[in-house]
């Protein structure tokens, strides 16, 4: 059909892109994780010391677990917010559907940083929320743990990633043929059974995709902990950033990155299997 030259020209740019900007950096990162730094100089000596440090130092392991806990919380809370929202829009919003959909999407246009600073002003000691609590005499002094805590990180990330969870679920719900819902009612299923036996199983691919988005994106986030996390809200990406920056220990940073990459890839692999299992086309 097409000549070999044509095929080569067409496929070259994406291949080069993937090669230079994806495979090469990954290879470099992988190699770095087996090298070392001596007297402030990177030496190309192959060893497993970085991985040993990583696994034996409780700080790194602790932060890694905290990161996964935060990511899991964000996933859970964005599902709890995103699923009902998507369900309502898809099945019960009627003519308000379009407007509400836009309202869910609009925050995505606002810069991530702006939203981070907004949370700072809301959660801070003299912030909006504390002012409100004191004005109504619910508390008598500012509540300190609102800002610079894992709570603040989870809150901000949930706020940011809920639309990402909402979108695939909404798409999955919209693709459920309505006669299936009617058939379920027709066969005697009340709304609760219809939801559990028909709507939920058929929206599983969207739910899994949304959950994966929230978890993976939160796992690698470093701006939210930087802005609202404080020392107790530090996440693994902040450690990586400081190792590559101030600490100048690229090999250790690279080994942490490899760990995160392995977690992420394993997760993506598993969710793809799950999505396949739940798709019935």
């Amino acid at each position: 059909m097409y000549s070999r030259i044509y095929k080569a020209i067409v496929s070259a740019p994406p291949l080069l892109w993937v090669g230079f900007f994806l495979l090469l950096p990954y290879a470099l990162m992988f190699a770095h994780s087996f090298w070392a730094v001596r007297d402030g100089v990177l030496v190309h000596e192959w060893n497993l010391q970085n991985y040993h440090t990583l696994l034996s130092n409780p700080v790194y392991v602790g932060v890694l677990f905290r990161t996964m806990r935060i990511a899991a919380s964000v996933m859970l809370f964005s599902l709890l917010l995103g699923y009902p929202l998507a369900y309502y829009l898809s099945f019960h919003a009627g003519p308000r559907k379009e407007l509400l959909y836009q309202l869910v999407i609009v925050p995505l246009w606002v810069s991530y940083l702006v939203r981070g600073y907004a949370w700072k002003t809301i959660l801070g000691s003299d912030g909006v929320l504390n002012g409100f609590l004191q004005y109504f005499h619910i508390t008598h002094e500012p509540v300190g743990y609102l800002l610079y805590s894992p709570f603040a990180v989870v809150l901000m990330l949930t706020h940011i990633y809920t639309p990402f969870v909402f979108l695939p679920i909404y798409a999955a719900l919209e693709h459920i043929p309505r006669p299936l819902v009617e058939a379920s009612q027709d066969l005697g299923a009340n709304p609760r059974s219809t939801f559990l036996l028909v709507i939920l199983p058929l929206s599983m691919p969207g739910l899994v995709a949304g959950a994966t988005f929230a978890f993976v994106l939160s796992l690698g986030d470093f701006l939210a902990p930087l802005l609202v996390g404080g020392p107790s809200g530090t996440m693994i990406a902040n450690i990586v950033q400081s190792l590559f920056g101030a600490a100048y220990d690229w090999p250790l940073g690279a080994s942490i990155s490899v760990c995160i990459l392995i977690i992420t890839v394993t997760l993506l692999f598993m969710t793809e299997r799950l999505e396949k299992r739940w798709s019935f086309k």
Partner: protein
Amino acid sequence: MSAGAFSLRQASTGAGSPLLEVRGVAKRFGAREVLKSISLDIAAGEFLTLLGESGSGKTTLLRLIAGFEQPTAGEIRMAGERLDTLPPYKRRVNTVFQHYALFPHLNVRDNVAYGLRVKNTPKAEIGGRVDEALSMVKMTEYTGARPSKLSGGQQQRIALARALINRPQLLLLDEPLSALDANLRKQMQGELKALQREVGITFLFVTHDQEEAMALSDRIALLRDGALEQVASPRDIYAHPATAYTAQFIGQTNLLRGEVRGGVAICGALRWPASGSDGAAVFSLRPEAIPLAADGAAPPDAVRLCGVIQQQIYGGSSELLEVDCGNNQILRVRIPACGPLSGQHEFVFSAADAIRVRE
């Protein structure tokens, strides 16, 4: 279709009173009036067909009975009890959907068992009844298959089994055969009719295909623009159409427009004795009621007419002729296959076959 269907047989409700009563039901979607005050009774065990063009409101009426839509006015009763105020899952009505609406994530067995499962039927009973329902539609070998692996006809059978297993008082069928190819369709028509006789459940069948309606129904309710045009048995509606629309929609016909004056109908060149009031009149004359004059003895009230054959369409066992009777009056005539014809011929029809219809 098989043994074991006996337990599906409906306990006969009190004879005489209709199973379903539709009373002055109207439905409006915004400014659009889809149904205009429909009243209709369906007897227990009856096979009634809602026939109409697309947009005539037949599916809307079905959805009102199933409970997917609420009537704007009027009420629906089943076995004497108010039906239209119940949610769909509390009605003893089941539906076979146009595109079957089988659950894609469940296999055949779970699809068929769905209705029993959501009503918390004991597991032991579900198994037996699923087997029974599947054998009734001859689908016992496919219990583990996903619907997407089945052909259209097979999905159709599963949809039927899934509905009938609930032993509904009334089964609604929304153009269930429209997605099948012609041969399979004919076969399924036969099976559907046999199945209905066997289980004795009342069928309310929606179709736009008048031949299908004629072949299956005990009675046909013809809908036009959201109103009932005529409700009658297939033979009745064909032999005695009440309106010009009915006459044209059910089978083929010649509509003769003219007038009645002093007991004589005058339509173009044709004249015949007719009773009824004087004035403008429309008559329906079926093509097969106009044989060639040469064939057999003419009836006593025979009306003779001469015409030039303009076109002849061969249809296997019969021929359809277009005959010009003069003054551009064209009659369609169906006669037994007889070989090519041309030129002028004499035809004859009985005045009793010219049915006066409303416009």
